[in-house]
């Protein structure tokens, strides 16, 4: 036990060592978290009225980010599959980083849910037996189960591997292989369940499509690798941890294919709704073309579409996919494009027009953005700490092995 405590302390200790840039980064993140605390106090006292949400658009920026970051979390599985199913040894070294990203992303997603609900002091009502847990009927109940399970899996598996490495031993693959397989399927399930939260609503024709869960998975597999490519390059830049270029190449390939499928699915949605517009196509009409003079989201969705198309072109051309500059551009464009398309454009459009045909638009307030800033920062903060500690232990193990 004392070894485990030593492991924890030694794992956290590297977070307190770093250059001035590192400390600037950490202080910046803490400052953002302070901004969140400040704005959240207002929200706690006054209620969600400080946001731009209304009865008409009752989910906004917070839930948009929630949906997006659950996707990022799910994409960590993309490192596990090549490493352990396709036996690519080069990926073994980055599996832990991917799972660290998953933990950070799940925490961000949970953070956004927590700031979104009206009575966070009552979350204990969702605990089975203590509260009343509407499982299996409520999809949100499923979401609570799968997200917490995923968090546990992604903490337990790396912790086991790292602890073994810390002790100088090689972990026995038979001990954790089943959990890895479970984590793979579980990753798909968290994002499918999140998609079902939306697609189960028969009241919202924009969401009530069988294509929503596939679109979620595919866009997660686009935005996730995009983020990972950039993060791995940063790790390569700021640490001595070796990141093989073959990893980046494969991730770029996954990104390309996923983006192609994502655009295909988006195109399929557009065709189905626009070929012969029914009343149910009102929301997508509003999104792309505006409705009755209201068109706040059109610029966003067309930008997102443009970003996605530019990204996929850059990715499909071999030269630009292998050139790191253009690849990074493509990653950034893809990330932003997916964030808009899956985050704001999906969530807000589902509410416009309302089931009674009213158009009431939404834009996040400054305070809403303030509350969100620190949650992003929390994710980055957790990821930095986990990576710092994990890499230290791994490097130590590699050298001593």
């Amino acid at each position: 036990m004392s070894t485990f405590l030593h492991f924890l302390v030694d794992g956290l200790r590297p977070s307190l060592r770093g250059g001035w840039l590192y400390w600037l980064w950490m202080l910046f993140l803490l400052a953002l978290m302070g901004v969140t605390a400040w704005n959240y106090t207002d929200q706690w006292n006054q209620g969600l009225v400080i946001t731009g949400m209304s009865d008409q658009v009752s989910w906004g920026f917070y839930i948009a980010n929630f949906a997006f970051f659950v996707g990022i979390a799910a994409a960590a599985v993309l490192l596990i599959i090549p490493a352990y199913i396709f036996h690519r040894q080069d990926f073994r070294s980055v599996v832990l980083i991917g799972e660290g990203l998953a933990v950070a992303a799940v925490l961000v997603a949970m953070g956004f849910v927590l700031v979104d609900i009206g009575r966070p002091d009552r979350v204990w009502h969702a605990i089975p037996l203590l509260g009343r847990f509407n499982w299996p009927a409520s999809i949100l109940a499923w979401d609570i189960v799968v997200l917490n399970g995923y968090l546990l899996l992604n903490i337990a598996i790396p912790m086991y591997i790292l602890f073994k490495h810390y002790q100088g031993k090689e972990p026995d693959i038979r001990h954790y292989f089943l959990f890895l397989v479970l984590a793979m399927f579980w990753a798909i399930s968290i994002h499918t369940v999140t998609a079902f939260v939306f697609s189960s609503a028969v009241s919202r024709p924009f969401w009530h499509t069988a294509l929503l869960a596939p679109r979620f998975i595919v866009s997660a597999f686009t935005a996730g690798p995009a983020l990972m490519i950039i993060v791995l390059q940063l790790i390569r830049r700021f640490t001595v941890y070796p990141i093989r270029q073959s990893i980046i190449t494969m991730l770029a390939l996954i990104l390309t294919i996923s983006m192609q499928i994502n655009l295909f699915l988006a195109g399929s949605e557009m065709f189905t709704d626009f070929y012969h517009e029914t009343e149910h196509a009102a929301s997508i009409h509003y999104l792309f073309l505006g409705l009755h003079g209201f068109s706040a989201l059109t610029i966003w969705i067309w930008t997102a579409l443009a970003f996605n198309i530019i990204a996929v072109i850059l990715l499909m051309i071999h030269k630009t996919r292998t050139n790191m500059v253009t690849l990074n551009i493509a990653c950034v464009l893809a990330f932003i494009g997916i964030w808009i398309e899956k985050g704001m454009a999906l969530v807000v459009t589902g509410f416009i027009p309302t089931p009674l045909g009213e158009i009431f638009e939404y834009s996040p307030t400054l305070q809403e953005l303030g509350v969100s800033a620190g949650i992003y920062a929390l994710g980055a903060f957790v990821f930095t700490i986990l990576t710092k500690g994990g890499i230290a232990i791994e490097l130590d193990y590699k050298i001593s092995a």
Partner: protein
Amino acid sequence: MSKNRKPVPSYREDTENTDLARRNFFKKMGLVAATGTVATIGAGKVISKQAWGGATFEDALGDFFQDHYVRMTDDEMVDALARIERKARRKFGVEIICEDTRPIPGTYFGYALNISKCRGYRDCVTACVKENNLGRDSQVQYIRVLELNEGDRNLEHSDHYYNPETVPTEGKWYLPVQCFQCDNPPCVTACPVEATWMDDDGIVVIDYNWCIGCRMCMAACPYWARHFNWTEPQIPAQELNPNTDYIGNRPRMKGVVEKCHFCSQRTRKGRQPACMEACPTGARVLGNLLDPSSDIRYILENKKIFRLKEELGTEPKFWYYTDEARARS
């Protein structure tokens, strides 16, 4: 430390500087902790004053640990009702009565609205706001009256904000919408904590002290019937309706969802809901679907009726009817 340990590499902490490092570590932590404590106390002050709404510590604790409506014992319910009354006294300076009205056995409510008669006055809306202690500031209204063009049933063409000099306007018809107390309610399935359910008399009720405010039910409702308290509801003390019940119109708090409950505080005692009582044209009819001699049964059996969005399978217990009779063979 494990005895397999190799010499410590340079990027790890060396043992000579461990103590110094440890001291520095604790210094840093101390500073952070001190700042943190001051911040927490300061924030705690700010939070505690507002979050408890000026409540006593005992009431706040009681509120926090309060069980779900269907699980509360009689004693717990008595305590909860007393807490609600005390809170209203503190907040509004008004003595209210809060009861726990149970459904009348053998009742199953249905509602019919005569669209030939509705003239768009919105008297129902105003009466509902007054009867159910709806927040004037948080601006929740359970009923929304839609103005549609003659012959058009497309809700997208409706006007919610009509305000002509006089109603009804030529060439328009009016459609009031509120919670339809569906028999197959999507909101009940959606709620992760079972804060909303269909009670024995068919009313879909909400336990306001259990709702966590996730608004999943609002996304799931096809009729836009559920509303959220984005802020603490403000009701002028002289307009507060003091006859309240737990599941119905007692003063609610911010952060919870609420909706039409067929005025359970009235209907479970045999009185008409406020909207039905206020409607000058008698367009609204609430009744017991299980009573074959009731008004509502006659309407459903003899009038041309329809429900909104039938294709969604929600089975609403709210029918619209016209003056025309159904063809009898």
